[in-house]
């Protein structure tokens, strides 16, 4: 007896290797898959909702400091290591994977004003209110050894900030003037001043490493060239700038955190107009740090919140806050661009996810594909009102919320006044100043 069977050619459905994709016969005839836009819209809507559902950015709180955390530093070689300096002169080194403090040093009397790591990760520098610059070994002392700095430099004035060169054994401090130090010497190689006010922070450019930026309390930002030993240019803003941060991917771009609740992104070649004014904070912005990808930055504010801004957007995409977090003094974006750390007044360092709804850990390829697809869908339908509303919606503490309302009213009033003035004056006598130009007082050559 012969049995006839249905037969298929195995070539049509058998994979050659285990790693190949399973071949699924599929008909892409568009008539068979109608309503593509509504279906994708619903998918996008669901993706947006799920993103909000899964947005749980807070990861951990590192407690142990006995005073407010004043400064943070990343380890250049190890992602898990973070250094922090407190207002009581204590420096702690943390292990992020264990979420534990692995070393404590009483570094200074009074505040630890600044902390920075050497580019090779073997040592770090601190400056304090006791007019000293100290260099410490990254590894703890052996058993029986006393915790001592490698070098101590006693200065004449208080140093308020420090930053290390990205390639060489040079560091810069600021205070009354900007000093460039060779690590081997006890006196500065050169010191640069322009004006007579105290300088609050100094930062090396990570790409063109001879460039420095500093901000002083007389409302100005000054750029220096270390090789020519001269300041380059100065821009005076409406209010004092607290700190600046250079973009690690674009050599001439830096962002300044200002006391007038705004952040300003400048192209250092054209200081008279900022590239972008970032506004969303409702109190002074105290610190700013770029994501290592150079696409976003994070800012810490006196209004007890941390915000994440895209470089090319004037509004923030994310705001982080918790009930117990007080004024956030310092913030850092980790070098794998996945996490954000912030140190605040109430003695804690908090660890956040940079992308609030991101799933941590290894993703399977299907998960990854789904994630990418959802991301693209959200991007595609981002202008649709429902999706936009859901994506933008954030719960805020009452203080910030009411502040925002208040400032919106103030701004509206100001705008109205301006419009009225323009309307009732002789044409040409009143000029409209753009938001970008409004905050720049002068550029000094």
């Amino acid at each position, binding site marked *: 007896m012969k049995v006839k069977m249905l037969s298929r050619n195995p070539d049509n459905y058998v994979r050659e290797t285990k790693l190949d994709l399973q071949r699924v016969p599929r008909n892409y005839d568009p008539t068979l898959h109608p309503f593509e836009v509504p279906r994708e819209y619903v998918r996008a809507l669901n993706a947006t909702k799920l993103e909000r559902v899964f947005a749980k950015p807070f990861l951990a709180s590192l407690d142990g400091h006995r005073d407010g955390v004043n400064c943070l530093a990343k380890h250049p070689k190890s992602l898990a290591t973070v250094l922090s300096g407190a207002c009581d002169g204590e420096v702690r080194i943390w292990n992020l994977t264990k979420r534990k403090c692995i070393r404590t040093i009483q570094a200074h009397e009074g505040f630890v004003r600044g902390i920075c790591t050497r580019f090779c990760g073997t040592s770090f520098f601190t400056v304090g209110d006791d007019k000293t610059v100290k260099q410490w070994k990254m590894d703890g002392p052996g058993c029986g050894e006393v915790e001592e700095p490698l070098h101590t430099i006693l200065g004449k004035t208080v140093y308020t900030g420090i930053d290390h*060169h990205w390639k060489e054994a040079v560091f810069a401090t600021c205070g009354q003037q900007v000093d460039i130090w060779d690590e081997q010497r006890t006196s500065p190689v050169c010191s640069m001043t322009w004006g007579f006010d105290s300088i609050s922070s100094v930062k090396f450019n990570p790409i063109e490493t001879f460039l420095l930026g500093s901000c002083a309390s007389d409302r100005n930002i000054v750029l220096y060239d270390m090789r020519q030993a001269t300041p380059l240019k100065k821009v005076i803003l409406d209010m004092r700038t607290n700190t600046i941060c250079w973009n690690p991917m674009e050599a001439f771009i830096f962002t300044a955190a200002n006391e007038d609740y705004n952040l300003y992104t400048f192209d250092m070649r054209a200081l008279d107009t900022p590239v972008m004014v970032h506004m969303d904070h409702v109190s002074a912005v105290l610190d700013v740090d770029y994501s290592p990808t150079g696409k976003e930055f994070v800012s810490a504010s006196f209004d007890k919140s941390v915000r994440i801004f895209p470089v090319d957007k004037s509004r923030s995409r994310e705001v982080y806050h918790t009930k117990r977090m007080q004024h956030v003094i310092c913030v850092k974006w980790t070098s794998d661009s996945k996490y954000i750390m912030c140190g605040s007044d109430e003695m804690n360092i908090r660890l956040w996810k940079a992308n609030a709804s991101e799933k941590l850990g290894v993703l399977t390829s299907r998960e990854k594909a789904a994630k990418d697809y959802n991301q693209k869908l959200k991007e595609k339908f981002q202008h649709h009102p429902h999706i936009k509303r859901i994506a933008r919606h954030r719960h805020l503490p009452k203080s910030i919320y009411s502040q925002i309302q208040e400032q919106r009213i103030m701004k509206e009033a100001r705008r109205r006044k301006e419009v009225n003035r323009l309307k009732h004056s002789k044409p040409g006598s009143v000029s409209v100043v753009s938001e970008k130009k409004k905050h720049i007082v002068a550029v000094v050559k």
Partner: protein
Amino acid sequence: MNVVQAAESLLALSQQEELEDLSKDDPLSPSEDEGDIDGERKHKKLLEAISSLDGKNRRKLAERSEASLKVSEFNVTSEGSGEKLVLSDLLGPVKTSSSLAAVKKQLNRVKSKKTVELPLNKEEVERIHREVAFNKTSQALSKWDPIVLKNRQAEQLVFPLKKEQSAFAPIEHVLSGWKARTPLEQEVFNLLHKNKQPVTDPLLTPVEKASLKAMSLEEAKMHRAELQRARALQSYYEARARREKKIKSKKYHKVLKKGRVRKALKEFEKLQKVNPTAALEELEKIEKARMMERMSLKHQNSGKWAKSKAIMAKYDLEARQAMQEQLARNKELTQKLQAASDSEEEEEGAEEEGELVPDAVNEIQMDANGPNPWMLRNHSRGTKEIKVQDPEQLPEPVAHEASENEEEDRPGAEEEILLNEFEERRSLRKKSGLSQEAELVSRQEPKDSSSQEVLSELRALSQKLSQENQQSGKQNVSSARTVLAVQREEPTEAEEEPLLLQRPERAHTVEELEELGKEGCFQNKEVPRPVGEGQQSERNPDNQPGAPKEKKRKEQMIDLQNLLTTKSPSVKSLAVPMTVEELEDEEERDQKQMIKEAFAGDDVIRDFLKEKREAVEASKPKDVDLTLPGWGEWGGMGLKPSAKKRRRFLIKTPEGPPRKDKNLPHVIINEKRNVHAAAHQVRVLPYPFTHHRQFERTIQTPIGSTWNTQRAFQKLTTPKVVTKPGHIIKPIKAEDVGYRSSSRSDLSVVQRNPKQLSIRHKKHLKKNSVD
């Protein structure tokens, strides 16, 4: 060393030169002159000392003397000391000599120059410095512009930017560095070295080489060629054996085996004719094989494999069959070669077989052999009760095999075709470069086993032949019986089942009969066959016989009956196309009628028209009536405002534009904006788009895998920024993007001279200040 020596020699040379210079400076003999001058000086000193002793005239005018050839460097003559020196005086004598014209010019220029201006104040200078430095720096920075722009516009950025390139070492380096480390490797190497087997190019062993040397050239060549050929042949056969071994088709192997058996049988027959003694030997061999089998447990169901199959057999048809085959093989091997025995004996054997197999297998096995296991299910539950049936069922597999055997015996060409087919397939699969590795596989063992197999097959065949004779005889009887049963016309179940059971046998008997008919053994059977066939086809219309010939015959028979009983639709469709259409029309009409009947109550069209009218009415703008009843006239119940007044206070609204569905009778177009839909629509054109059509197009193109191929889907959903978890992303570097970073370190530049400016820098400065 050389350098030092050279330096020393240089030093010595320069000293010598100095000495020579000194000697050149004063042409006079130094010793005499010096002596003279010294004497004079001493003399003068002495005089002075004497004169100063008295204390009056300490200051004395220089001694005046005549201009002499001897000009001493120690006393200057002050001739004409009262006069002032004027430049023109100096120039006067110069005028005459043309050689000093250049100097004159320079002096003139100096005369014309004004006084130098005061230097700029410090702040100003610093400002200029800053400006210059800023220009320089911004120029240096502008080299980053293209990279920044590229990164901003990039479709995808993968961080970290710098990729670690895995370096591939060339194979020679790896091999040269490799050494046997593990004990196994060392052992292998030792063996190879002991045999002096060339490791790299295994062409000839030293022994072969020696033998080559021992022979003459031509002989050696021939020998070598032979060797090569042998090796090639060996490798060819090995490859072929491997290939054949790889073929998974059971049918192929079966065919192959059958062929082998047939060959053996033929040879045996030949031997019988030609050489009876040899045939006897062969027979002895067969007997010996039987003995061996009886001694061994090879085909009993006590082995590991058999046990596992026994477990599986309950659920798996194939496993069951495999077990049965094995048992059959065992039986064949252990059976004595005899002349045909009685059917009773066979039955006993079958029963024994049943006992050998575990009960669970047995239970279903009976079903499996039957034509339809579902029909037999109930009966198999009470196996013991219906043991009467067993004798009919159990011998079947043997008969089955036998018939199959015959089937394959007959078409020798068919088998060849099959083999050819396999060859073709293999050749297709085969690649051009067949690996020619010399794998030394002993061919002896397979040969042995194959010979054994051949023997066993031979036995089986001879047995089957004998069985067949009995079977076919029996079948004749049984089929005759069934015919009788049908004729009796008592369609009870108990009688139907045996009929059903008969079916496979019958299917085989068709072929069998063909074959056997040729031999002329069973002519008597031809009469009852068609009747039985007809019944069979009636009962199992879905049964599809394999051989085309058979089919044809069947069709003939089916046709006859079909014509009588039912209308076949195929006839209808093929016969006359016109009538078909008519029929379809009729069907349509029927359907319409049906629908009409079903929806007799509701008039859809009228409803729709009414609905449309209402919609039109509702969308029409209403007139505004502002009349106030009772104002300026009598009012009250039942009184209406006058027509004149109403006309006066009625405000007519202008008619809107014509409705869009005015000329479309089957459609209602709602021109009102849907609020619910509007909530999901984009109000204004978003920023990067310049025309609403652009935006719509981006929304219209789907990106999901439902509408796109896998690759397109992946391409459409690539994320803009990709970061690797756990990798540190360093700031971009000039070297990363192919720029040359400044070779001098920043520190060295600072330390060289922090505040000094280069000459060029100064020049630049000056220019700036002038501007």
